[in-house]
């Protein structure tokens, strides 16, 4: 680790957003009665998703399809492939039951919008430009892995003699993957941004743009509390998953950065692409698993995605993926 990386880590950790995250963790560990009401959590989620969707859509309307289609396809491909190798690792190295491996791999192939937003926040913090339309990659990478994971899980259950017809389950999973609330908000806001363009974004910038970073900080305070409540389960998931929760994002992140570079993204864009690959879904994927794969143990996937990978990514992961990108783009070695 060189000085650059350390500096990037410091810049990240000293941003209000990250400090509020730490505050949330501490508040939970000291058993404070601080608690965000659920409607506030939902409101902040709605705000963050529509805001990045709108900004991304306006950027897309300027950039045009020619620049976007290749990385978009690469994002979808990653969403299908990451679950496959992740499943193999969980099943054959970690020796987890097939249905649990399937559920977990869906989380790691899918993406975390908050991690992505924290990454854009980090890049802004250090003055590194990036493609504003990267939100489009976030939008397309949420669902494919969920469908792959459900398929893997159902096939495993079939081998175990569960005779439930696949059709209905797949239909349900598809519906959830396409019309779940985070997908609808993100894709919908992207379309609104594309159609209303720069003018529309400017008219609503006083709400969707100026307060954005502050809202993120408040949201990370809540996420710190949510993540820290998962810490109690860390000892229940076994040593393999603890290691997996850090190694998987790092490997996926490096692969993501390199692919991002290969499909023509800038240094900042490749960092975001790596972050998407590294991030693990903790909203859409758990909901889809409870719906379509309720046989899988939620403690395992929630603890890994929310208790390990999410905190790792937003604290150390982001500067790391940035350092990898700098190295790949011919800057300093990581």
């Amino acid at each position, binding site marked *: 680790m060189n000085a650059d990386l350390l500096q990037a880590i410091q810049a990240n950790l000293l941003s209000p957003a990250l400090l509020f995250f730490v505050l949330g963790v501490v508040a939970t560990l000291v058993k404070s009665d601080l*608690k*965000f009401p*659920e409607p506030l*959590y*939902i409101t902040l989620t709605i705000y963050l998703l529509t805001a990045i969707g709108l900004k991304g859509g306006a950027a897309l309307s300027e950039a045009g399809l020619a620049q976007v289609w290749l990385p978009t396809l690469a994002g979808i491909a990653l969403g299908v492939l990451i679950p496959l190798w992740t499943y193999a690792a969980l099943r054959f190295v970690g020796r987890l039951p097939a249905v649990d491996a399937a559920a977990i791999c869906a989380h790691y192939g899918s993406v975390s919008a908050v991690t992505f937003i924290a990454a854009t926040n980090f890049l802004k913090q250090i003055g590194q430009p990036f493609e504003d339309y990267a939100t489009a990659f976030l939008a397309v990478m949420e669902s494919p892995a969920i469908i792959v994971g459900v398929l893997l899980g159902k096939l495993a259950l079939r081998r175990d003699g569960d005779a439930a017809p696949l059709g209905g389950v797949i239909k349900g999973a598809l519906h959830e993957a396409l019309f779940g609330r985070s997908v609808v908000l993100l894709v919908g806001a992207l379309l609104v941004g594309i159609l209303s363009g720069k003018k529309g974004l400017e008219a609503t910038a006083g709400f969707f743009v100026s307060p954005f970073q502050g809202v993120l900080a408040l949201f990370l305070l*809540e996420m710190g*509390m*949510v993540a820290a*409540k998962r810490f109690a*389960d860390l000892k229940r998931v076994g040593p393999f998953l603890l290691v997996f929760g850090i190694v998987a994002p790092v490997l996926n992140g490096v692969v993501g950065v390199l692919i991002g570079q290969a499909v023509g993204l800038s240094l900042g864009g490749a960092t975001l692409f790596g972050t998407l690959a590294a991030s693990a879904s*903790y*909203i859409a994927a*758990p*909901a889809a698993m*409870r*719906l379509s794969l*309720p*046989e899988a143990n939620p403690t395992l996937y*929630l603890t890994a995605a929310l208790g390990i990978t999410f905190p790792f990514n937003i604290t150390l992961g982001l500067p790391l993926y940035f350092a990898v990108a700098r190295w790949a783009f011919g800057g300093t070695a990581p």
Partner: protein
Amino acid sequence: MTKHPMTLVTIVCEKLAREAVTKLLREVGAHGWTLWEVEGSGAQGNRTGDIPEFTNIQVEVIVPPGVAETLLTRLEKEFFKRYAMVAYESDIRVIRREKF
């Protein structure tokens, strides 16, 4: 005023089971249901109600005793293993028997 005995079935379960539970209610023939969000603690840990993924719902449904029997049997067979859940029945009295 004549009052008619009915059975009130109460289900407390994780919010993510909501669709599955209301589907079951329709299937066993309940004419309506009432539902709200709750926090809880049980064998599967604390459900603190801070984010939707960790919230519970409580569902109350008024049904004739026979329907309650079917409902609880199916809950036991299809739901108890899969979801964080508690279910029980109690005796109530209503006025409009035909409504339930």
